[in-house]
Each structure stands twice: as C-alpha cells, then as structure tokens.
C-alpha cells in the first residue's frame, strides 16, 4: 500500500504523469476509484481484495485522454482491457503508465458485503501483471488453485438447459433490466461516444425497457463484446437489476477460444477476432 502511495507521489512530483487513477477505501469491505492529481492527495491510495473496479474504463474519457500522461493502478486482468484499448486505437502504450499490481484475487458479490472470491480469479493467468511499467505488491502465492480452462460452472449449467428453459430463464432475467446502461458505462471496452442504442436512424434497438428492447440491448451489448470482452465482470457487478450478464459474455469468450483459438487482451499485435477470418473457419451450420 505504501509503495503505491510512494510511486504515485514520485510520478506526480517528477511530472512523469499528471494524473494517477487508483483506489481508495470507502467502507469496511468496499473500495472505489480515486483520481489523484497532486502528490499530497495520494495518501488515500490503497490496494486490496476489494479493488474490483476495472479502472481502464476511465482511460477513454476526454479529460483523461487530454492529460500529458496518465498512471493507472491495474491488476493483471485490467491490463487486458488496456491492451484492447491500444489495439483499438483508443489509447497508446506511451500515454499510459501502468502501475501493475500483483494480485492474489479480488472479491465478488454486491457491496457492501462482498463475500465470494471472484470467479474470474480462479482462472486468472495474470496474477503477476504483464506489460506494466512498474509492478508492485508481494508476488501472489503459488498455492492459489488455478484452473487453466476457461469454462465456468454457471455457463456449463446454463448450457445444460433445454432451449425452452434457457429462453424462460433469460425472459425472466432480462425483464428486470431497467436500461440504466450501467453495464455499458462501467465496461472498459464500451467506449463509443455514441452507442448504437442511442441511434434512431434506424432505431435498431428499442429504447423502452420492455422485453423486446431489453433483449435487443443485451444481445447487442454481448455481441459487440464478443472477442473483446476481457472478463472483468464489471457489467455484472454494477447491474442494479442483478442480471447475470457475464453468463452471456463468457459463453462468447469460450466460443471465440474454441472456434478461433483466441483470448482477448493478451497480445498487442492481435486483431479483434471479428475483424479477421480464416478461410477454414468452422461452418458446419451453413448449408
């Protein structure tokens, strides 16, 4: 914790960066984003298992883009988002100073009482962050069980359902959506300044929070993230309606992995999988 504060102070006082985005404590079991612009404000910075937010979502803001250089406290998984933002021309490696955090895993569940360990942490490959400019924190213990496959029990469970059961499940879930777009705004990969849902020529997606609109919106959101989602789980965490959004995202990630042998956010040279193709892509569904 102390080392983050010191690092932030150093970066700010030496003028390396003019903004540090990190975390502060805001409750026993709760942290939240913190913007630090002056060295003396850095004392609030913390890092612990409650630092669930993916701060990369702030990198695409105009005011952050306008900084000379920005430092960001990032877990290994958050860096995947930064990688994608660079690939997609929303940021540059030079502009972002990555304070990478060795991370033993974060919590999940709703504030203020998150309890469960986050599912994404069970399959994490980047507990020691890649590509950071500086890496802080104790090396995560080897003993944490790590599951190399990216299948998730909840996805498996859903897959077992019949089509009608799935439809009934999602009808119920999506009817709760109030279209607050917290999922979109929290998502580091949803950086469009004009979302397709805000377009009305034509109105592909009904803006009303009725079932049709909710279905459309959630389909489009998941589809646009296919091959780009970095599994941070922010959408699901911030959803006031508790819709299990990551179920959809993970399904698509698994599909991308299986069909195109691709996992997003690890390689700066990679192209989003829906912008490239192989001539022998799987096509047994086409007659």
């Amino acid at each position: 914790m102390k080392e983050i504060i010191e690092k932030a102070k150093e970066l700010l006082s030496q003028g390396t960066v003019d903004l540090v985005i990190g975390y502060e404590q805001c409750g026993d079991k709760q942290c939240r984003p913190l913007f630090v612009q002056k060295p003396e404000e850095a004392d609030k910075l913390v890092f612990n298992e409650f630092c669930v937010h993916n701060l990369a979502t702030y990198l695409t803001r105009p005011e952050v883009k306008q900084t000379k250089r920005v430092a960001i406290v990032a877990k290994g998984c958050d860096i995947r988002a930064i990688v994608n933002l660079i690939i997609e021309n929303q940021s540059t490696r030079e502009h972002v100073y990555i304070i990478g955090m060795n991370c033993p895993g974060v919590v999940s569940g709703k504030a203020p009482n998150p309890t469960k360990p986050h599912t994404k942490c069970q399959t994490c490959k980047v507990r020691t962050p890649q590509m950071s400019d500086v890496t802080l924190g104790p090396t995560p213990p080897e003993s944490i069980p790590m599951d190399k496959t990216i299948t998730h029990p909840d996805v498996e469970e859903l897959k077992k359902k019949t089509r009608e059961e799935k439809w009934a499940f999602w009808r119920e879930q999506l009817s709760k959506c109030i279209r607050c777009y917290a999922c979109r705004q929290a998502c580091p990969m949803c950086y469009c300044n004009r979302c397709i849902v805000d377009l009305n020529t034509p109105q592909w997606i009904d803006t009303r929070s009725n079932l049709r609109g909710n279905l459309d919106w959630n389909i489009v959101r998941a589809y646009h993230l296919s091959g780009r989602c970095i599994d941070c789980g922010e959408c699901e965490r911030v959803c006031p309606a508790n819709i299990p959004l990551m179920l959809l995202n993970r399904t698509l990630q698994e599909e991308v992995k299986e069909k195109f042998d691709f996992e997003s956010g690890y390689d700066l040279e990679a192209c989003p999988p829906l912008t490239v193709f192989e001539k022998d892509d799987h096509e047994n569904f086409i007659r």
Partner: protein
Amino acid sequence: MEEKWEPTIIAFVCNWCTYAGADLAGTSRFKYAPNVRIIKTPCTGRIDPMFILSALERGADGVIVSGCHPNDCHYNEGNFNARRKYIMFRALLTQLGVDLDRVTFAWCSASEGIKFAGLVTEVTDRIRKMGPYTEFKQLNQDAR
C-alpha cells in the same frame, strides 16, 4: 385471416450469388414455396446480425441468410467476414434460447437455382410444422 396459418420467411441474400441463383430458379421455372420475401444486399458481409433479430421481432417466423460459397465472394472476403459474425451470433442466440431452427444459413451460388428452390421449400415446410414464432411475437406486447 381465419384460414390456415402460413409462415412468413425473410431471406437476406447477396446480390452476386444467391440473388442470381434465385433469378436462375425463376428462369428455370423451379417451383418453390411462396412464403419467402427476399431482401437484397450487395454481399453477405453487409448482412448484419441485427437484420436477423429485427426480422424475427417484426413478425418473421423464419429467416434465411444466404450468399456466395467460400472463395466465390465477389468481394473476395465478405462471406468469410460474415461467417465469423454468424458463428458468434449463433453462439449468443443459442445461449439465450432463441430458436435457431428458425434461422437458416446456406451458401448458394448463381448456378444453384435448384438449391435455392429446394432450400426455400424445405425451410418453409419446416417452419410451417414449427408454427408461428410466438415467443418473439410476444416480445412486442406492451403489457406492463
């Protein structure tokens, strides 16, 4: 309207292969089911998954998406790009429980008039057996 229900099927086709294939079916007088309504696009690459979703929501009971065979694309790559989109879109719809038996993908070249005619008839028969896609039609009801 009290007579027997007939399915509505919307087909999104590319201009160069399937549309021409449908033309050939016409000039060859291959008969097929009259339920299909063709919407022409330049290339399968232009056929957005949103089209499929919109068509189902707006009352189509079945959708056909068809274009040039791999390597035959007039624009070289449009169908390859499209195919990737459909792979992902299908995975998504499968997970949501959308009835994918109602969405048919087929390659159909300009010389395959017979394939086009067969395709339309087969899809129409299948959808007719499945009945109207009420699950999607219900989405439009404005019950509070």
